[in-house]
């Protein structure tokens, strides 16, 4: 599998429809290089989670379908595969909302992450590895996952995904509902996992500043489309992105990126 050319993941112009009628993604394309971290930014409802589920195959559990375009992983089309197959190939999704198995212990949750793996000894080594990344999980290994804190549940969801030893991790809003300190801690660990284990990450986030700090590249989504993409540093300094994500307009509502864009266009005409 040593394809050196071509990205690890490439999403080519996909359209996604839920329930046969609800058109949600309208031609989304993006790439994740081997070992890279790519941020997928956008407000609530933009279509970030739908994009990740189109990659992992979980879309079908929500009656969604990729109706146009293709998702390719290491050059192979995967958008018709079921989730178990996709995990086997090396992609694992950490779903939004800290979806741990509540009635299982922390350690049992981690073991389910290694479900597709056969080598028991390697799995035990990786259990130790996850506990090194997340020492807090080691302390709570026997606790029922439904009762550990929100931050610990997010760590558990990420650690569990690492147990699959994926090539690509799809991380859906790990910052959601957590205190800023904790978010920084978790993003740090994700960065380390990426460097040390070589796991590529596609990171869906509303928290753009945080996401652009760990990512090398970013895409901005709005209303089911990619409206902007670029180098993470450039995006972070991009006036539109700043205004959109950091500046709140008058009544405390976020401006749509599109409004910003129109405004810029007008400005260009005037100058």
């Amino acid at each position: 599998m040593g394809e050196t050319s071509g990205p690890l993941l490439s999403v080519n112009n996909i359209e996604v429809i839920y329930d046969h009628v609800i058109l949600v993604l309208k031609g989304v394309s993006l790439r994740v290089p081997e070992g890279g971290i790519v941020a997928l930014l956008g407000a609530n409802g933009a279509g970030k989670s739908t994009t990740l589920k189109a990659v992992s195959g979980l879309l079908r559990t929500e009656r969604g379908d990729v109706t146009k375009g293709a998702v390719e992983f290491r050059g192979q089309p995967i958008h018709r595969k079921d989730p178990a197959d996709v995990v086997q190939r090396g992609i694992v999704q950490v779903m939004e909302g800290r979806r741990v198995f509540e009635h299982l212990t922390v350690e049992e949750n981690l073991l389910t992450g290694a479900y597709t793996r056969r080598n028991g000894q390697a799995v035990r080594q990786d259990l130790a590895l996850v506990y090194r990344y997340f020492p807090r999980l080691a302390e709570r290994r026997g606790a029922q996952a439904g009762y550990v804190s929100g931050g610990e549940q997010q760590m558990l969801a990420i650690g569990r995904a690492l147990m699959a030893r994926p090539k690509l991790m799809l991380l859906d809003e790990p910052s959601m509902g957590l205190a800023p300190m904790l978010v920084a801690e978790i993003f740090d660990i994700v960065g380390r996992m990426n460097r040390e284990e070589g796991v590529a990450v596609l990171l869906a986030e509303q928290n753009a500043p945080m996401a652009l700090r760990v990512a090398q590249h970013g895409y901005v989504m709005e209303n089911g489309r990619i409206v902007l993409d670029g180098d993470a540093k450039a995006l972070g300094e991009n006036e539109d992105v700043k205004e959109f994500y950091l500046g709140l307009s008058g009544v405390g509502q976020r401006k749509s990126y599109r409004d910003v864009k129109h405004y810029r266009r007008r400005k260009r005409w005037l100058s």
Partner: protein
Amino acid sequence: MGDWQFFALLLSNGILIGLMYSLIALGFVLVYKATDAINFAQGEFVMIAGFVVVGFLISYGAPLWLSLVAALLAMIAFGFGLERAMLRKLIGRPIIAVVMATIGLAAVLRGLGPLLWGADTKPLVLPIGDEPILLEPLFIPPIQLVGATVSLLFLGLFGWFFLKSRKGIAMRAVADSQQVAMAMGINVERYFALAWAMTGVVSALGGVIWGNMLGVDVHLSLVGLKVFPVVILGGLDSIPGAIVGGLIVGVVENVAAGYIDPFVGGGTKDFAPYVVMIIALMVRPYGIFGKQIIERV
């Protein structure tokens, strides 16, 4: 016989019978735990297993061991096939659809059993004798001892499976959240089939034991009625709960029958467990060990 001796006898009898209820309830729990389906045909599964054993023994003149193996394989195949043919189609539909489907299945099986194997009551003879074992002040029918031992063995085996084995943990993960289990690469439908096949195993054991005690005819399915008080008491999805629930039901019905039946002329056994069940529902809706819905703010 003194008062306390009489009580001890009722108690020991209740405990052994109760463990045999636990075994049948385990079949129900396995399916509910993994698939969220409520199986109203559990008693009929036991009946069919009984029919298969006596069918092989009497109609085909097969040796006992072969009949037992045949029943085991038949019930595994039955559970597996049922999941494929019927229950898989009901995944994601309202729970009432599954309930109605299994109630319908129960009726069909009650008709089919006698149709295929005859309506008369057939003996299911095991080579264990029926001379009670005397353990002053108790005396115990050998089948009860065998039944209780087999029950404990399989309850332990399934308990180990769920707690320690890779497949068992995966099955509990499926029970916890099917979608998240899929995200971990777990083939959810395979585990549904496995749960129904495991219920087949338990039903086969129950069919042999209860068939020996009651004889095999359509009434054998009535042991399924004890499943509901057992699982409501213990919790629909708990193996320890099935043990404790079974013990409570066994003891309650034996003790109640021992003291009340002489005055009312019988029948106490059939309703006493349900009285306890209704009280339990009002006090502890999740059962003694049932998993609670974890809610956090």
